[in-house]
């Protein structure tokens, strides 16, 4: 069973993704900000990390940088919902820094599942 860490400062999003993925049979853990996420990563290495990029207190980029160093390297899915096109700049940065998938909010569960399983 794949282990997934979801990092997002919005509770609705966190819990929504968690529930949706749990329904699909994943073990989902959550963190509400970057610091929490990094702390969690010091304890376990998930198969997939889904993280929002723009967050207070150490944003997703930091999570990403940290995650890159983990062994075995998790699949990293960066998400952002600024709606601003400039949010895409963040996502582009995330891609350059090693995110495997970029998703702009809102997205469907289907897309998310594809992102998790895509080879």
């Amino acid at each position: 069973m794949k282990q997934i860490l979801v990092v997002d400062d919005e509770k609705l999003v966190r819990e929504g993704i968690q529930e949706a993925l749990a329904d699909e049979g994943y073990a989902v853990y959550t963190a509400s900000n970057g610091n929490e996420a990094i702390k969690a990563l010091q304890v376990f290495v998930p198969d997939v990390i889904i993280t929002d990029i723009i967050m207070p207190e150490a944003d997703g980029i930091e999570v990403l940088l940290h995650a890159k160093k983990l062994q075995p390297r998790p699949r990293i899915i960066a998400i952002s919902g600024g709606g601003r096109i400039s949010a895409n700049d963040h996502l582009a940065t995330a891609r350059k820094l090693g995110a495997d998938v970029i998703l702009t909010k809102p997205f469907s569960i289907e897309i998310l599942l594809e992102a998790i399983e895509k080879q």
Partner: protein
Amino acid sequence: MQFQNDSYRISRSERDFLRMLFQRSPVIYCEFNRFLRLSYINQEGLSFSGYRPEEHIYRLADFIGPEKSLRTPWEEDHPRKSFIEVRIQSANGNSLYLNCLWWAIEHEGKFDGIACLGFDSTRHHQMMEELQKSNSQFKEFAQLLPETVFEIDMEGNFLFLNESSYKIFGYTKDDKINAFDLIVPEDQPRLKENIKKLLSGEAIKGNSYVARRKDGSTIPVLIYSDVKYQDGKPEGFRGFVVDISAIKQAEEALLESEEKYRSLTNRLPVGIYRTSREGKLLFANRAFINMLGYDSPEEIFAHPVQDFYSEPGEREKLLQYHEPGREYYQPEIHLKRKDGTQIIVKDRGKVYKSPDGQIYYDGIIEDITEPHQLEERLKQAEKLQAIGTLAGGIAHDFNNLILGMQLYTEMALKEAGNNNKLRKNLEKILLAQERGKQLLQQIVSFTNYPDDHREDINLKEMVSNILDLIKDTIPEAIDFNAELDDCGFVNVNPVHLHQIIQNLITNAIHAMEGKGRLSIVVRCAYADETQVKSGNENHPERYAIIHVEDSGCGISEKNINRIFEPFFTTKDVGLGTGLGLYIVHNLVKKYNGEIQVKSHPGEGTIMKIFLPLANKKE
């Protein structure tokens, strides 16, 4: 006794007759012998001159004038004067003058003396003397003047010409000059005309002519003259001539300077004007006339300035300024051109008070219609940007909420199973969320850059980046393929390019309902090949073509002409804003590009975007 036909020659006996005839008459009769000495004077003559009969008289009289005039009866080659002047020395030493009729006495074929019938002309002589004196005084005075003073006869011969004239005209006293020849041929007709006027009694002021010097050079002159009459008949002209070269030069300099200022004011790209308080246009330069759409000064001056104001009452604002020297400035006035179109101008000027007390407004107007329009558009863009920024500020949270709603709705949908009613309701909620997402995206897209921001962007790179960002949101069931040629650079706002591509791909995905083939191709082309309406048909422009093809449901014939309309959508009610392609179309047009659609129901759709490539030197 018979007087001969040559009635001025008489014999001795005729002389005796005359003597006897006039002996006691009240007219003066005297005789001179052949030596031209007084030989007889009658009683009247004696008392006239104050002598008693016994006194010696032979030294009394002299003939005035050259003796030749006396000898004329004997010398035929000279015309005879009917009168001769005789001077008599009176008893108390004064000179008395007689104007005399005279006869020549002939004896034995020889000149024997003169017989005279005299009339007192002392007074006349005095007058003549005074005239002479004044003439010479005048002449002395005339000699002093630096200008030309002249007296001519009717034929133009000079009777008097002062010293200065010779210097001015470069002649010497020995030269024979005719006055009329001193005027250049071109002015002769006018000269004759003026002479005629003078002679007919018309009082005329000085006239200007061009005069000619001895060496052929010319000078502009002003001639003041009058007719000289003798016994009621015109005998000649007198007057003076002023050299007006200096004045002419000053005149020319003034004209030149005037011309310089006139052409300067007409060249300036601002409208220069003068108006009266009552609203009469008194001066307008070329730019002013053109700005208001009129063709000529005459045309525009016919209008009161109130005609040019779009808003009644605008003119009154100006009238509050009336202190001379007061400057005024109106940053924005709406004016009406001849054809009714509006322009917006800046009006700046000064109140001027003329010497006769009139108040004028002298100013300039500058057309700011275009900058004004740009400003308005900028304000509009700024407003939109503000809205966008505002929206952007909450977009993050909004998108989170929409995502949350979407996730739970999708999960609920899974739970709905066969409950069709429930399914339908949940699907409707999903549609609403989709619409919300799109709306937000479109509002927020106004932010980040001012609308006119442009950059030179490497098209291939940019499209590649954009695809990178959105490819993960393309469902796996869709076979996605991208082929990007390097065509160079386009000069666009990167945000807009993102919007264009995003919109096209979104539409394609929707048309395919989650599965099918989607391809993006970027390639280069020339104008003639692409049949693109470019601004200059003759200039082969390079274009990049962004080609988006899907295997979706296609567009029906009846809809294909409407797809770019705002709010037109074939998506189900609640889904889609109908703004996507409208925005794409506006953006493409903004960049002087073109958009073409090829589609048939059931056969998929091809969207082709043409963007002009920037001529960037790499």
